[in-house]
């Protein structure tokens, strides 16, 4: 990928379109952090493309002064796949929501991930349909009361990380809209990853689902509710890092390990690079309020990308080509009429 010659600043990525999210919407913070992250990637602005579906979150490309496409509902990964497979020199980002990406668009997301197309997928999960004014989404908790479920929804929620693992994604992470540093680090990691990167970003929809992620954003609650994953490090959390995760057969157990006389090194150690996604899957099952929810990188493994292999096979074929197009036309049984 081309390196940027200019030194860019976040403001270079602003467009002249008014940002139209509701004042106080969690999307603003994500926008700001992406604008801060991009200049650190050393990619020329013109080589970056944001592609989205439809939703509040999907208005995102309009607010980034890069190339961008706000496409149709749920299909952003298909456009991104075509683009990246055509132009491997570009840095291609998909912006989607829990409705866009997991309701109508689940299939495309899955196929992009299993193919390991080198695109970065950011799923803004606010557990609601924002743009259409507040219906429950596939990530809304069971029993959620919304406009379309006045007596509580009967849908069990999908777990985006488990689901992405079932789809064989090579890079999977989670962060929270209000975690500036953490988000930027995760974004950088995703950008560096060769292959599909799937990031779930908890986002607060002020209007239709305010406070859903309070357990994660509240400074006090956060200690007990969030587990920050770090490769090679033991899984500890709590205000005084006093709690940790033990492996009990195939299920997690939360233990105040210090109290119980253990050290950090008796705890489960995180391994982003585990070839099989079983550890990551195990972690994805840890959900609030029963467990601290892991944020950070669940999985980051290397495998060749679809677009890379396509490009290579094409380049090889072009190099090995021995005939002109005219000769191709002449191939096969021919005869001359005089």
């Amino acid at each position: 990928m081309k390196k940027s010659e200019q030194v860019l600043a976040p403001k270079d990525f602003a467009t002249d379109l008014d940002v139209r999210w509701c004042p106080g919407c969690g999307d603003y913070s994500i926008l700001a952090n992406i604008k801060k992250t991009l200049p650190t990637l050393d990619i020329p602005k013109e080589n970056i493309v944001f592609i989205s579906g439809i939703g509040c979150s999907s208005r995102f490309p309009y607010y980034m002064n890069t190339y961008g496409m706000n496409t149709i509902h749920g299909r952003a990964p298909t456009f991104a796949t075509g683009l990246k497979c055509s132009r491997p020199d570009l840095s291609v980002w998909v912006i989607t929501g829990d409705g866009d990406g997991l309701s109508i668009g689940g299939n495309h997301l899955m196929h992009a991930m299993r193919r390991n197309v080198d695109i970065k997928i950011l799923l803004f999960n606010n557990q609601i349909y924002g743009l259409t004014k507040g219906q429950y989404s596939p990530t809304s908790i069971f029993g959620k009361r919304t406009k379309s479920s006045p007596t509580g929804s009967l849908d069990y929620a999908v777990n985006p990380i488990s689901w992405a693992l079932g789809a064989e994604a090579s890079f999977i992470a989670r962060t929270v809209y209000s975690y500036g540093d953490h988000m930027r680090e995760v974004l950088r990691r995703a950008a560096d990853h060769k292959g599909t990167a799937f990031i779930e970003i908890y986002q607060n929809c002020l209007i239709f689902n305010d406070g859903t992620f309070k357990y994660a954003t509240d400074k006090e609650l956060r200690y007990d509710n969030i587990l920050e994953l770090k490769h090679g490090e033991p899984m500890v959390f709590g205000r005084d890092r006093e709690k940790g995760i033990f492996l009990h057969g195939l299920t997690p157990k939360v233990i105040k390990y210090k109290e119980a006389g253990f050290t950090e090194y008796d705890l489960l150690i995180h391994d982003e690079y585990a070839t099989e996604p079983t550890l990551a899957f195990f972690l994805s099952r840890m959900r609030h309020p029963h467990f601290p929810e892991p944020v950070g990188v669940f999985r980051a493994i290397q495998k060749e990308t679809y677009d890379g292999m396509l490009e290579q096979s094409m380049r090889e074929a072009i190099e090995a080509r021995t005939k002109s197009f005219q000769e191709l036309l002449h191939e096969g049984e021919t005869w001359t009429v005089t």
Partner: protein
Amino acid sequence: MLPEERKTTHRKEVSTLDHVVIRLAGDSGDGMQLAGLKFTTASVIFGNDISTFPDFPGEIRAPAGTLAGVSGFQIHFSSNIISTPGDELDALVVMNPAALRVNLADLKPNGILIVNQDTFSAKNLKKAGYNQNPLEDDSLRNFRVYPVSITTLNQTAVESEELTFKQINLTKNFFALGLISWLFDRPLTSTVEWIEEKFKHRPTIINANIKTLKAGYNYGETTELFPIQYHVPPAKMDPGLYKYISGNEALSLGLIAAANLAKKEIFYGAYPITPASDLLHELVKHKEFGIRVFQAEDEIAAIGSAIGASFGGLLGVAGTSGPGFSLMTEALGLAVITELPLVVINVQRAGPSTGMPTKPEQGDLLQALFGRNGESPLPVIAPQTPGDCFETAIEAVRIAMKYMTPVVILSDGFVANTIDPWKIPDISQYEQIEVQHPSKEILKGSERFYPYLRNENLVRPWAIPGTEGLEYRTGGLEKEDKTGGVSYDPLNHEKLVKTRAEKIRRITKDIQIQKVEGPKRGDLLVLSWGSTYGAAYTAAENMRKQGFSVSNANLKYLNPFPQNLEEILQSYEKILIPEMNLGQLQFLIQARYSIKTTGLAKVQGRPIQVREIQNKISTILGVE
């Protein structure tokens, strides 16, 4: 027994014919397609003009011997230039009772019927739904029936080779081929050469196939069964180098040609579907010409990926058939409003819904024009012959890129699978397709790039990612004029809706004037479109030969229509529109020009035949 010797041993009567239509039919496993192709090659090398049509069974292989398992291959060869695979059969070869049952209706009265009588067992007759053996009751009395023990004769022919039972069975198509090669006076050379090449490393198979081929030939020559041999002299074809080609092959090659002419890579996004899958199979073989093929998870992904590619500056193409085209509806609307170049190929098949997947129809014309929410006009063009598929692909690409618009190609299962001789074009004789991507210079110093500022053709610039300074956003929301930003302004919306429509309308100035064959004014015009061309042309030509004032015109451009179409329509007393649907072009013509026309609607999953059009013309003209 090769042509040279052949002449010396000649001893039966030879009857010379103008043209002949034959069909080889048998079970899917009987190798009829291959035998048909080899017969075609021999005919072509001999110098006839030909047109062929393979008729595959439904998608799933049916049990051997059943009606659903029957596979046929039809060949029309002639000493004149011809345009269809032919209506009725002069000769039919059937390898089992099911093949007889399925195909007999197409055989001319007094036509030649060669039957592999070995297969007419009680069991096979039952599978084909016969209560009685048609070879034994009187039901075939209207035909010249030649029962031949093909199975047995073939076994005898190859018995000296070490073959398994299954292998022996696989050679009997060559016996049949030998036999009809004699009957129609076709040389065996090309087939022998092909066998030798194909089975290079398996001499037993070579020997067996050649032996039985010749045995079949000799059987015709020697036995008393056939009193006459038929001869169809060479046609006067346009000189040049030829090969044969199916519509799907030509479409694929046309796309590669277009890529070549535009100096662009092509991105082909597709999901397998009958009868369009062959485009995928063909294109994927040609990476070396800059063809990126992506087998998507469905048709929505196929078109989405193609649009993504176009946004990136490649030419995006998505190929499909009916149900898949339906799934592309929403994304096609996006391509319209974003004004990105794109080619969508719909190889139409019989609908509605899943319909009859292996059968052709022209039922998606109105859908191609109107099947999207909101006002979303786009050009629609249709190829008329296999060879024309090549030109159509190039034209679609040219229009798409020149006018920044999706273009729909409406092919169909008939033209897609018909095999015609094709004079190999000289690509250096084609005009290059010019494509420009603006660079920063377009800004002329100003800061702002206007991605929807239009040129004299109302076309916006095709700026592509990677171009510094031209970063822009596009999408499905209504755009602000010029800037491409989001706008809900009422007058802006109306302006853009009308501009997008006007842009497509103006393409009419940039396409060929509609050609008419026959008198420029007259009693009747046969107005056909797409693959109905061959039959319409032949029917009109036949009528002209009989002295009637009948012209024909075949529409390739369904939207916008050619500039001179209205004038043409007004130059004839009557207009007949034959099409494989309930009258969709007729509907368009009436809506557009308020001209009353007569339709010939055939919706049988089968091409319209020459005689059907001729009959209709006669009725309209009141002759008979």
